[in-house]
């Protein structure tokens, strides 16, 4: 297990998961205090906190593997070093957009964690098991909202479907294969993005068809790729600038 390729592969996996969680949590936290219903404001805020919490723990794992401190990784890395997918970078849009992204992202997260709970890389398996309950709620929340809004008013139906149209192809950015897919699979760390993607397609399409949502055929999934290699949408850089604004105002200070 001491081979460097193994560790690099695990680190790669951890970085992209952590970055996804951080940016998704950050985006969703933008709704805190200005959501559509007080109770939903609280629920959405909790899930945003869960995501940032997951990110922290993945960065902490990386730190234990010799990488920098979580605060440095998250708040002082340049944009190109981020490995998050394009889906999480997009601005929050209106509430339908944020809900549909939450639905698409969290199903992938749920399935990823389920796969990882059997990982041979034990610290990661343990985290995946630890978060099972949290992410179960996230998916329950997402499914319920999608179902109810698709059975709601004409307006809600007329909002949810276009949000799927807008986001579905970009959701494939989650599954952009990394350079270590084979190693991860061979070593039993993670069965790989392709496996995850087909599980996700199955779940998402069955829920969508049950609720009358039409998912467009995505012919070229790689159009959404790039994030895992450090090529991001135009939205990530301003997000990072904003997130690190206070921290950068006094480098090296403790806040």
């Amino acid at each position, binding site marked *: 297990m001491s081979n460097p390729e193994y560790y690099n592969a695990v680190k790669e996996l951890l970085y992209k998961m952590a970055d996804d969680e951080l940016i998704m949590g950050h985006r969703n936290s933008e709704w805190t205090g200005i959501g559509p219903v007080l*109770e939903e404001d609280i*629920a959405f*805020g909790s899930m945003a906190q869960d995501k940032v919490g997951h990110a922290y723990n993945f960065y902490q794992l990386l730190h234990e593997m010799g990488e920098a401190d979580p605060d440095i990784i998250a708040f002082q890395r340049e944009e190109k070093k981020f490995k998050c997918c394009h889906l999480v970078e997009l601005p929050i849009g209106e509430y339908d957009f944020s809900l549909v992204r939450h639905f698409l992202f969290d199903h992938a997260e749920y399935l990823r964690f389920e796969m990882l709970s059997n990982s041979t890389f034990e610290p990661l398996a343990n985290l995946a098991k630890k978060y099972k309950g949290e992410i179960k709620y996230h998916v329950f929340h997402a499914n319920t909202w999608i179902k*109810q809004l698709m059975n709601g008013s004409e307006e809600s139906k007329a909002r949810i479907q276009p949000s799927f149209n807008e986001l579905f192809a970009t959701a494939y950015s989650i599954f952009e294969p990394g350079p270590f897919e084979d190693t991860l699979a061979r070593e039993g760390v993670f069965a790989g993005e392709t496996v995850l993607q087909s599980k996700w397609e199955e779940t998402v399409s069955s829920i969508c068809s049950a609720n009358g949502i039409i998912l467009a055929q995505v012919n070229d999934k790689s159009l959404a790729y790039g994030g895992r290699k450090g090529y991001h949408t135009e939205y990530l850089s301003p997000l990072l600038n*904003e997130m690190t604004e206070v921290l950068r105002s006094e480098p090296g200070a403790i806040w």
Partner: protein
Amino acid sequence: MKIISLDPRISRISELPGQDETVIVDHQEGWITYEVFHQKKTGTQHTHVGIVHAPNAEMAIIFAKESFARRGATSNIWVVKSEDVTALDYTDSDIFDTTAEKTYRDASFYKTRDKIDQLKGNEGHE
């Protein structure tokens, strides 16, 4: 109106309602209320902790979880439509007054020791 806010989230909003723009929330938009009962751990009682506004029971559960169980231990939550609660008026709470004579309902009313001691003739072991 467009506001340059100190909060970047607000600055991103392209158009905020102006001062003389009236915004009214319709009563129906508040849905109905559900009473929330929280159980800390199995084996304990569910306790009333508050209410949530929700359109239906499923959503009420989703809301109740984060409104009332985001800290500390929880094993279960119930939600009950406020409408489905039947209660007595407080003005009738005198029906709960118990008269002092009803001590026959209490364990302390039954004192058998004396009789048993008597039966045993007060002899032998204490």
